């Protein structure tokens, strides 16, 4: 690491000419290991503080040069902070606030689970209670990257401390920008984990030219550098087959924006933030005087005129009477399935599935638009 750090010292953070020499004050958060307290056997140690830089903070201080100063280091054992989250985080924030920092930098936590999460947790708490910029660094596939995405700015690091010098360089550069309240460029260029925020930019090349450039990079075996990374779709393992629908409780769920007429539930027509549930135990069918669709992704005329076209309750009731369905569940579940983030819908799905499962529902028919 030493050689890398030396190389970095030769390229300290840029400072505009004439700018005041005042250094911004950094408080650095570390776990017990990086703070030099001890390894796994010391993971139960409670929060503590030291003046100045410790461990990776020394490298950070060197890279910051005369732009910033690590005035203090606050640490906590990984187990302690994960097991006493609320209280430990509060103690850490109090220790941090005593140094009156301009910015708090945590970690980097790399690919680790507990440490990375602790870094995110501390950053979020500092941001909320002290209202100063915060920054950490983690690997893109670490639990913290998923948990704190869009909540805490995270430099994108390697998955182990072998990437320390590189991580510290990125963190120092981002920290200077944050303190100076400079607008950050795109995640890929600045080296942070994408926050989910999208900003329009003009390009001097047409989309066709950029696509060919990308193809050429790919053919040359380089990173094609997509402008639009594809979302990662999870593969959901199929549920076991139902033994016999005629003996089973079946529920109907829809993402077709079905609501009670007038939408008293105030379900959104897109970017849904919730799902709704209707008691249909006494309903022989879905009638337009009681139900309608407010989905924003298609013309709802047909579904609102005849809501059975979205929730096939009329047909399902007949099949229940005729014995094809053991019992129809007493509730229909609905949300609006367009526009929103997959993470929201995953959460809705888990919540609805949990209710259905505890109500003894064995099979679900989901009508989708």
């Amino acid at each position, binding site marked *: 690491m030493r050689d890398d750090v030396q190389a970095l010292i030769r390229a300290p953070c840029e400072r505009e000419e004439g700018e005041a020499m005042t250094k911004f004050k950094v408080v650095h958060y570390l776990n017990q290991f990086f703070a030099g307290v001890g390894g796994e056997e010391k993971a139960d140690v409670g929060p503590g503080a030291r003046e100045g830089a410790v461990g990776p903070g020394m490298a950070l201080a060197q890279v910051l040069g005369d732009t910033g100063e690590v005035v203090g280091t606050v640490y906590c054992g990984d187990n302690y902070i994960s097991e006493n989250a609320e209280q430990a985080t509060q103690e850490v924030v109090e220790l941090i606030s005593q140094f009156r920092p301009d910015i708090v930098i945590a970690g980097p936590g790399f690919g680790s689970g507990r440490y990375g999460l602790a870094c995110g947790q501390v950053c979020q708490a500092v941001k909320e209670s002290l209202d100063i910029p915060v920054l950490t660094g983690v690997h893109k596939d670490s639990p913290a990257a998923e948990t704190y995405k869009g909540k805490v700015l995270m430099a994108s690091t390697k998955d182990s401390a072998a990437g320390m010098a590189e991580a510290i360089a990125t963190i120092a550069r981002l920290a200077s920008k944050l303190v100076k309240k400079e607008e950050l460029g795109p995640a890929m260029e600045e080296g942070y984990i994408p926050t989910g925020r999208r900003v329009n930019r003009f390009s001097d090349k047409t989309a066709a030219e950029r696509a060919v450039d990308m193809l050429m990079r790919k053919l040359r075996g380089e990173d094609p550098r997509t402008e639009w990374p594809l979302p990662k*779709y999870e593969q959901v393992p199929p549920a076991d*087959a139902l033994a016999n629908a005629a003996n089973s409780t079946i529920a109907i769920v829809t993402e077709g924006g079905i609501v009670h007429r007038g939408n008293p539930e105030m379900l959104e027509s897109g970017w849904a933030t919730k799902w709704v549930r209707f008691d249909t135990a006494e309903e022989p069918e879905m009638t337009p005087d009681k139900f309608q669709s407010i989905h924003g992704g298609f013309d709802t005329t047909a579904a609102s005129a005849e809501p059975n*076209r979205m929730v096939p309750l009329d047909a399902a009731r*007949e099949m229940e009477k005729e014995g094809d369905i053991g019992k129809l569940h007493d509730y229909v579940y609905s949300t609006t399935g367009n526009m929103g983030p997959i993470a929201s819908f995953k959460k809705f799905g888990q919540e609805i599935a949990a209710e259905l499962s505890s109500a003894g529902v064995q*099979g679900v028919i989901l*009508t989708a638009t």
Partner: protein
Amino acid sequence: MGASRIVKGKAIPHPVGDPSQPYEGEKELRKEMLKKALEALETEVASPTIFST
């Protein structure tokens, strides 16, 4: 998109309906689709599978 058992819907604005048909015809269409859906639920699948009506 992760759905394991799929029965093709009639159209986006009315997945289980057909406004060009009289009500009784539409309801029959819904029953056929639901029967196919129950058949799908009763079938073991290893990956996303389309069940045709």
